[in-house]
């Protein structure tokens, strides 16, 4: 069955499929290490969604800072989320943004594990 689901509960389906393929060749020891690093760094899509909604009521662009896109974050911050249009784009797009970030984190974790 799925080894990762035991270590990181709350994985999303797309995430799980990608991680399964990535970690297929890891030993149990390596997998535990990978899961520890990954679980500590991944963002849940709920976080990104809440940060995006903040763009309607307070400051726009926090979601872009959170996922490490500083340039986009600054642009959103100083233009009110591109006149609200960018914020709505991210509201539709938040799952993809989260996946993009988590995939990057998984790649880094793989390097750290020594694969």
């Amino acid at each position, binding site marked *: 069955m799925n080894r990762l689901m035991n270590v990181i509960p709350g994985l999303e389906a797309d995430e799980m*499929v990608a991680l399964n393929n990535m970690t*297929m060749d890891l030993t149990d020891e390596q997998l535990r290490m990978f899961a520890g690093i990954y679980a500590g760094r991944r963002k849940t899509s709920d976080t990104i969604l809440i940060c995006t909604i903040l763009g309607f009521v307070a400051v726009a662009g926090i979601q872009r800072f959170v996922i490490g896109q500083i340039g986009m974050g600054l642009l959103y911050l100083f233009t009110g989320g*591109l*006149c609200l249009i960018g914020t709505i784009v991210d509201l539709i797009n938040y799952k*993809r943004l989260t996946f*993009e970030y988590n995939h990057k984190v998984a790649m880094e974790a793989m390097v750290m594990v020594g694969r």
Partner: protein
Amino acid sequence: MKPRKLIPDDILTPGSQKSFRGYTHFRHSYYPEIAIWTVALIIPAFIVPGPETHFSFCLFKHLGLTWCPGCGLGESIALLYRGELAASLSVHPLGIFAVIILLNRIAVLLNKQILTKPNQHEQINECNPRP
């Protein structure tokens, strides 16, 4: 049975051009975001610079707010496309910054979209087992 190696060793090497292939049904497409930013860069090319000369895309304005920090960005980019750098900066100082950042974002997304193209013969995982 020993699992077949799906990921080549050099995929994680920095600068490696090899892609991670493993996404199947769940693979995300980045094209919607690419399309939106491309449109956002093309629209200002048709804006005639000047006050109130074009339909405002600012949703704050349509909601009834009189001021918004992003207004003038389109005109600024339009002026930039016409080569009027000083005017562009005076209308909205972030016009150049916006073009650079959006172009960069489009490039990054296109890179991901093309590099992570799944190979039809390697789409094997728990959801799509080997026949």
